């Protein structure tokens, strides 16, 4: 695959790790925001190639993990309604709500379908005119335009039986929440490459200035990530705090103009609850006035939903980068992908799921160490 294979060259990876080793003179903690990057780092063992001075901290960039349990419960309530078809991404099927998950509702006869694209849910609405189709629209800025496109398409086709349960989150306010926290130990960031294809790199410039922290927008392949780390380490060693773009083949400073215009038309900024992090002002999106009719929360009676979280899951600290998955006493024992206590063990981008899949030996039964 062009634009993938050339960034997975083993020799180049090892040479780059060596270059990072030569650049480092003191300890640095670098956070990768995006869950997709976390998975690539753990899958390819990139963190284990780095010198001891460089610690990678996993961030909150897993939309499945940060979707509030209340929204999961609302999706479950919708899926249980007899005239509703609930469409969602496959990742959401096994995320634990207060008592059930979507897969359990499907097993009991609820019509839950997983789709590859929000546009597929619009197609389901067209094919089922006698039923209400709800798309559970979760995601970061990368996914938000696809969601906006689905709503706008449904509006253009005058589909009265399509709506969206919206739980969209924004990266920059979450970064600020992490940087403002008393216990913040992050010295530099790998910025979320695919979020920036939409939003550009420019909105990270004020954050780098305000918190005096280098941010390197990075891609997702092993070489992209190591190059991003190399650039970030060079900045930290030189005492610089700039926004640099390692992923210029896909990210422009101003992002994607058409996608940004669409987001502005279909959504508006709103306060947002983050699972594990709590409420963050102006960190989410909801449907704008013009498209409010497509809001599933307005269309259906969902007021009775009361959310309860697992008391044992430490996902909040994991999502803030304060702890690693194997610091959790339940990791790999009472919490596994088959029987998850929290979302990070379910999602294909959750840090717990990455550790469990690629480093099962770290489960506490074998070792108390978290590498």
């Amino acid at each position, binding site marked *: 695959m062009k634009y993938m294979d050339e960034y997975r060259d083993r020799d180049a990876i090892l040479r780059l790790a060596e270059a990072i080793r030569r650049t480092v003179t003191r300890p640095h903690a670098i956070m990768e925001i995006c869950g997709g990057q976390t998975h690539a780092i753990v899958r390819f063992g990139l963190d284990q190639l780095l010198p001891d001075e460089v610690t990678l901290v996993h961030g909150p960039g897993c939309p499945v993990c940060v979707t509030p349990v209340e929204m999961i419960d609302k999706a479950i309530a919708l899926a249980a309604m007899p005239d509703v078809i609930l469409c969602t*991404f496959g990742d959401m099927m096994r995320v634990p709500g207060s008592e059930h998950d979507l897969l359990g509702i499907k097993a009991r006869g609820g019509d839950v379908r997983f789709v590859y694209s929000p546009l597929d849910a619009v197609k389901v609405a067209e094919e089922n005119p006698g039923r209400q189709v709800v798309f559970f629209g979760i995601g970061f800025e990368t996914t938000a335009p*696809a969601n906006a*496109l689905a709503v706008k398409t449904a509006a253009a086709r005058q589909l009265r039986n399509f709506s969206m349960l919206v739980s969209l989150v924004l990266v920059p306010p979450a970064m600020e929440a992490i940087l403002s926290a008393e216990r913040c130990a992050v010295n530099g960031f790998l910025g979320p490459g695919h979020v920036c*294809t939409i939003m550009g790199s420019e909105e990270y410039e004020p954050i780098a200035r305000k918190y005096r922290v280098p941010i390197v927008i990075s891609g997702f392949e092993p070489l992209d990530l190591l190059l991003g780390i190399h650039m970030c380490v060079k900045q930290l060693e030189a005492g610089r705090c700039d926004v640099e773009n390692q992923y*210029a*083949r896909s990210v422009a400073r101003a992002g*994607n103009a058409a*996608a940004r215009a669409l987001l502005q038309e279909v959504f508006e900024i709103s306060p947002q609850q983050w699972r594990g992090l709590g409420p963050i002002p102006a960190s989410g999106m909801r449907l704008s006035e013009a498209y409010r009719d497509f809001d599933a929360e307005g269309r259906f009676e969902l007021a009775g939903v009361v959310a309860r979280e697992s008391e044992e899951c430490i996902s909040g600290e994991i999502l803030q980068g304060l702890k690693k998955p194997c610091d959790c006493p339940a990791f790999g024992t009472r919490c596994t992908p088959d029987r998850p206590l929290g979302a990070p063990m379910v999602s294909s981008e959750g840090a717990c799921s990455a550790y469990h899949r690629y480093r099962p030996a770290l489960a506490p039964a074998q070792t108390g160490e978290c590498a």
Partner: protein
Amino acid sequence: MCLAVPGEILEITEEDPLARQAKVSFGGLVKPVSLALLPEACAGEYVLVHAGVAISVVDAEEAEKTLEYLREIDELNELEDGASP
């Protein structure tokens, strides 16, 4: 969730702006992809596709620059190795 895969636009199949669509090849696997967010993308270009929607055109020149940066690091490594006793 934010995963996106690069693929090559084979042909544009629909030009209406909201429904703009193309056949995109991912290493031989061909799928229909929405081009609504890339009004100017054309056949032969590589695009990053996320959730059935193309979100950016891959810039071949910038991709080459990244690989050049790697070569520069290699050269530096060699220089330093040459200089070390």
